[in-house]
């Protein structure tokens, strides 16, 4: 116990006497959490629309003003031909083209049917999908108005009609930041935890100070614990800073209890630090350690469900997400913060992550050799 105390004292001194690292530990998460959620706005809005109106009739103008009034589209460009409109898309000035054919109004009235042509830049799939759907529903709406003008429906609607009402729970304003901030906080805690832990032991190897520990009576587990505990504390501090920023800057107050979040974070940090330590036992230089942890973090983060939904991944990727601690924490954070899930709801998450912690740390202790 006394040995451990001295080791901890040494580690904390090492951290607190390096102002560069200290600044990174505390400033980086704060700044990122203040900036990134503003960038990570995946909401589909501001769709630029180019209108090619060959008709110039009352109807085409009505339709145009209806689209402009919807709020989803910026109707900034009017082109005379489809070709110039396509140029707009090529230069990224526009995402969608709506072409109204000549004598659109006349055909619609005389022949009961008329066509519009829509083309969308589909490089960004989400935008293409949602943008197209929005525009189609606006056109349908307009269609209904036209019909109402021409035929007087009887008061009792003869058509079958299934009315679909929809409600959005847990995030009724559909604020994308509520979704991203908890996820980004997880990433920050993970990055700081794993990078610092993996770099720390390797630095001792590179500088040569590990020799001094190897010739001391310090036990393996004491050494690993001595490395683990300081970063565990730092992780929890970052977590606290992050939650404070989420509350002050974004008004995100967890719907569930803070205790649930901290209990999970405590267990999760053990597993993430375990990965960091494991990497450091396998590498010889800081450069290697950094690259390997970067590589692993990248896979973990991308497959963690922060940006894209895990449900739509193929089976092999889903299998990876099951051994990915990051995906569990992102899931838990969103559940607790947005939906107010309690300990009982995240039971299986907790046990899985405890499992990870035991495996990774055990492996790291086994793999740490006091001989060189």
């Amino acid at each position, binding site marked *: 116990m006394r040995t451990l105390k001295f080791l901890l004292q040494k580690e904390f001194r090492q951290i607190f006497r390096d102002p560069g690292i200290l600044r990174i530990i505390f400033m980086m998460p704060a700044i990122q959490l203040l900036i990134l959620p503003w960038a990570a706005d995946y909401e589909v809005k501001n769709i630029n629309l180019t209108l090619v109106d060959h008709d110039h009739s009352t109807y085409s103008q009505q339709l145009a003003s209806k689209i402009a009034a919807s709020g989803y589209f910026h109707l900034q460009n009017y082109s005379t031909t489809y070709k110039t409109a396509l140029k707009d898309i090529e230069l990224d000035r526009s995402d969608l083209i709506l072409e109204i054919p000549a004598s659109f109004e006349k055909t619609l009235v005389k022949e009961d049917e008329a066509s519009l042509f*829509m083309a969308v830049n589909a490089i960004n799939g989400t935008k293409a999908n*949602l943008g197209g759907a929005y525009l189609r529903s606006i056109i349908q709406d307009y269609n209904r108005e036209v019909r109402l003008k021409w035929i007087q429906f009887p008061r009792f609607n003869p058509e079958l009609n299934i009315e679909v009402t929809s409600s959005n729970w847990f995030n009724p304003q559909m604020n994308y930041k509520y979704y991203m901030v908890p996820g980004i906080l997880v990433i920050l805690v993970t990055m700081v935890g794993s990078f610092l832990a993996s770099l720390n032991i390797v*630095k001792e190897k590179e500088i040569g100070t590990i020799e001094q520990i190897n010739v001391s009576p310090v036990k393996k587990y004491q050494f690993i614990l001595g490395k683990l505990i300081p970063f565990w504390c730092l992780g929890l501090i970052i977590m606290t800073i992050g939650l404070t920023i989420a509350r002050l800057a974004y008004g995100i107050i967890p719907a569930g209890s803070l205790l649930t979040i901290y209990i999970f974070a405590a267990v999760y940090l053990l597993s993430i630090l375990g990965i960091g330590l494991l990497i450091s036992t396998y590498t010889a230089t800081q450069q290697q350690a950094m690259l390997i942890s970067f590589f692993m973090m990248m896979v973990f983060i991308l497959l963690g469900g922060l940006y894209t939904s895990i449900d739509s991944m193929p089976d092999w990727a889903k299998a990876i997400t099951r051994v990915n601690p990051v995906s569990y924490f992102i899931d838990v954070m969103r559940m607790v913060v947005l939906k107010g899930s309690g300990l009982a709801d995240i039971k299986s998450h907790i046990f899985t992550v405890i499992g990870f912690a035991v495996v990774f740390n055990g492996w790291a202790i086994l793999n740490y050799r006091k001989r060189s």
Partner: protein
Amino acid sequence: MKQFLAFVKKEFYHIFRDKRTMFILLGMPIMQIIIFGFALTNEVKNSRIAILDNAKDQSSIDLINEIDASQYFNIEEYLHTYSDVEKIFKKGTIKLVVVFPANFQEDLQHFNKAQVQLIADASDPNVANTLTNYATAIIVNYQDRITNQRKLPYTINTEFRMLYNPQLKGAYSFVPGVMAMILMLVCTLMTAITIVREKEMGTMEIMLVSPMQPFIIILSKAVPYLLLSMINVTSILLLSVFALDVPINGSLLLLVGESILFTLACLAFGLFISTSTDSQQTAMFISLTGMLLPTMMLSGFMFPIENMPLPLRLISNIVPARWYYSIVKDVMIKGLGIRDIWKETLVLAGMMFFLLALSLKKFKIRLA
């Protein structure tokens, strides 16, 4: 010249004799392309949903079967009471609940009007939106079918065409982004670290007492990583063409030329970082936070730039990857030529010269 080659050779030895680093540098792009190409899609499919059927009549069962048959939804659970809805959302796997009122069929047949309620877990607003849209479309379809498809008067049809990427593959927007990220990583991070490492280990002193010009020393550090990046560009392009079916619609020569330009800009940035820091850890963190995250976040590759608030949109202009990403997208997927991208090219070239000049100026020949 001979001296220069000797220095380049030394740098190559540094890289080749560190197997683990080599492996990661060359393996990373392949791994990323596979993950981005196959695992990450913005498409929403196989979403797990639950049904609360208070009617349990023929119509509701028909409609449920219809929903189950679509590729977008997997019905995971049947609920019994309304209070189950919140419970099931809290467990986290269910994204949408479809609620049928009691007397669904009766309402539909006698009053010609019935209600279906869709309750979405809107923690992720996009998924909620998309799922609601899909479910509504299925229900409207079902309704059209049972109304015998009587043709309505005054119908406006819309013809719809997806340009460039008709199958809506995620790879079309990810491949250019991955290229930017990998080049940034290899060039900026690795050059920054190698130079600082020589400082940390003390070997920088040896180089500085050699008769080489500082400019040549820096250049010899940059050449190997330039070559390494070109290998990575080649493997990314090969994989995306042959494994992901992403075409190269524009000129390959132009694409490679622009990649070299971007690589040089990244190298210059790496050099700049290395001349301003003294420890590897600081250099790493600066390149990670100063380069990688902005590259991922502000280049337009993951998140649309036009959604960002004005300050971030302004900042995104100084992120080199933003310009490169737009160039690659234009050349590779839209098949545009130099005439349409000269502006982006000029910006990149300007950044490169600026950073290079800055780092040359800051490079100290004397040890502090």
